C-alpha cells in the first residue's frame, strides 16, 4: 500500500500560512482564520506587521496556532475559543476579552481590561497589565508576570487571577467567587476583598497554573485574596456604607 502520508516538509507547507498585514488586509486575515484555515488544513498562522491593528484573530473557534509578530491594538483574540494566540509584542485594550477557551499569550505589556469578562481559557501576560485587568472575569485564568493597574478583578465572578508583581488600588472590589493570588505589594484592596490563608490546595493548583503559564515562582510567595461575601446580601442597617 502506498504511503499516503505527506512528508514532514510538505505537511509544514500545507499546515502553515503567513500573513503580512502591511500587504494584506485585516479582514482577509480574520476571514481566513474563521473560515478557510480549517477547511484548507492550516493549523498554524503567522502574522507579520500587525502595526497596532485592532481585532486581530478575534472570534476564533478552532484549535489554530496564531503567532503575531509585533504590537497589536484593541481586542486581540477577543472571544477566543480553542485557539492559541501568541503576541510577540504589546497589546492594546481588551486583549482576550470574553475569551471562552484556548490560550492567549502576550509577551509584552497589555493595556486596560485585559481578559475582561473571560469565561474560560488561559491568558498569560509576561509584562504589566494596565487598569481593570480581569474585570468581570467569569471563569478561566489570567496570569500576569508583572504588575496590574487599579480596579483589577473588579466584580470577578469565577476563575483565577495570578499577579506575579504588584497591584494598584481597589484590587478585587466586589469580588464574587473568583480568587486572586498576588506575589507583590497591593496598594489597596477593594470593597469586600480580603486576604485569606493559602491552603495546600491553593499552593498545589497555583504551582500547576504558574507552570502552565511558563513561570517558576514558588507558590509560597503568593497571598490569596477572595471575597469576604459581606456584599452578597443587602443589609438595611449598612446605610450604603461599605
Amino acid at each position, binding site marked *: 500500500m502506498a504511503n499516503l502520508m505527506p512528508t514532514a516538509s510538505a505537511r509544514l507547507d500545507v499546515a502553515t500560512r503567513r500573513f503580512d498585514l502591511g500587504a494584506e488586509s485585516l479582514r482577509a486575515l480574520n476571514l481566513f482564520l474563521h473560515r478557510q484555515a480549517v477547511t484548507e488544513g492550516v493549523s498554524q498562522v503567522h502574522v507579520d506587521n500587525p*502595526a*497596532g*491593528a*485592532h481585532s486581530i484573530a478575534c472570534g476564533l473557534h478552532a484549535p489554530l496556532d496564531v503567532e503575531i509578530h*509585533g*504590537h497589536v*491594538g*484593541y481586542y486581540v483574540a477577543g472571544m477566543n475559543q480553542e485557539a492559541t494566540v501568541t503576541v510577540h509584542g*504589546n497589546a*492594546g*485594550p481588551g486583549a482576550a476579552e470574553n475569551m471562552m477557551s484556548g490560550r492567549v499569550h502576550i509577551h*509584552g*505589556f497589555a*493595556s*486596560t481590561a485585559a481578559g475582561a469578562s473571560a469565561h474560560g481559557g488561559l491568558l498569560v501576560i509576561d509584562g504589566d497589565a*494596565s*487598569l481593570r485587568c480581569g474585570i468581570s472575569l467569569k471563569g478561566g485564568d489570567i496570569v500576569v508576570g508583572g504588575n496590574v*493597574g*487599579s*480596579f483589577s478583578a473588579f466584580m470577578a465572578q469565577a476563575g483565577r487571577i495570578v499577579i506575579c508583581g504588584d497591584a494598584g488600588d481597589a484590587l478585587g472590589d466586589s469580588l464574587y467567587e473568583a480568587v486572586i493570588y498576588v506575589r507583590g505589594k497591593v496598594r489597596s484592596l477593594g470593597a469586600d476583598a480580603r486576604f485569606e490563608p493559602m491552603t495546600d490546595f491553593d499552593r498545589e493548583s497555583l504551582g500547576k497554573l504558574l507552570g502552565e503559564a511558563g513561570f517558576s515562582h514558588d507558590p509560597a510567595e503568593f497571598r490569596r485574596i477572595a471575597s469576604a461575601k459581606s456584599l452578597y446580601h443587602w443589609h438595611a442597617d449598612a446605610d450604603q456604607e461599605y
Partner: protein
Amino acid sequence: MCGIVGLLVKKPQLREQLGSLMVPMLTGMTERGPDSAGLAVYSAPVGERQHKLSLYRGAHAVDWSELLGALVAALSGDHDIHVNGNHAILTTTAEPADVVAHLAVQSPLIAVLSIGRSIDLYKDVGAPAEIAERYGFGSLRGSHLVGHTRMATESAVTPAHAHPFTAGRDFCLVHNGSLSNPHLVRKKLEPLGIEFETDNDTEAACRFFEWRLREGDDLPTAVQRGFSELDGFFTFLMGTDRELLIVRDAFACKPAVVAESDDYVAIASEFRSLAHLPDIAHASLFEPKPEEIYSWRI
C-alpha cells in the same frame, strides 16, 4: 472619542522632518477622530520684540493683504503675514493685545487661534488627511508639536470647537475624553476676567491651566492642581514653547502610548499611529500611568 498625537524631536537636525514624521501619526488617528483635526507646532521663537498670531478666516472672504494694510495703518511697528490657505501667521512687533483688539473691530470674521513667539496653530473641520494636505503639514518644521483628531461628543463640530485649544502665550492643550464640570470651572474663571470663546469642555481645562501658569505655577504644578478641580475623563496633551506634557485621569479611561528613543518622544492614543516611526522597534514603549505627569523639554 478622539485621537491625540505629540512629537518632540531631540536632535536639531530632525527639526526639518517634524512635519513629515507627524503626518502618518495624525492620519493614523482618523478612525478615532474623523470630523476635525488640528495641530500646534513649535519652532524657534521670533525676534525678541516680535510675536506671532495664528489667524483663521474659514470660508469667509477676507483679503489677507487688505487685513495687513489696515493693520499697518492702525498700529505702528513691523507687521508681516504668511498666508497658508484660510490660515495665516501674522508676525508683529505690536503688542498682541492691541492686534487682537484691532482685528476684533476691523476684521471680526477672523479668529485668532494662537498668540506667542514659538507657536503656529492650524485647525479645521474635515478628515485629518485632508487637513494635513490642505495646510501642508508634511513640510512643517520645528522642535515639537501637539496634534488632535476629533470625534465630537459634547459640543458642535466647528473649527472653533476643534483642538488644540490655546490660552495666553505659547500654550496649547488637546483632550481625549470629556469633562463633567466645565461649567463650574468656567464660573470660577470668568469672574477673574478670563473670557471663553466656546462652550467646549476642553476650553475650560485649557483656560484653567493657563490661569495657573500666569499665577506662577509651573506646568506640572498646575496639572497637579487640576486633579482636584477638573472632574471627568481625560488624556491631556499640552505644549509650551519649551515643553510637551501628557497626563491621564485616575481611571485611565482614555488610551495613550509613548515611544521614546534617542531621536524623539512620540505620543499617540494608540500604537498604530507610532508604528511607522523610524527605528520604532528599538524605542522604549510605555503607557502613561493614571495621574502621573510626564513631561519632556526641548
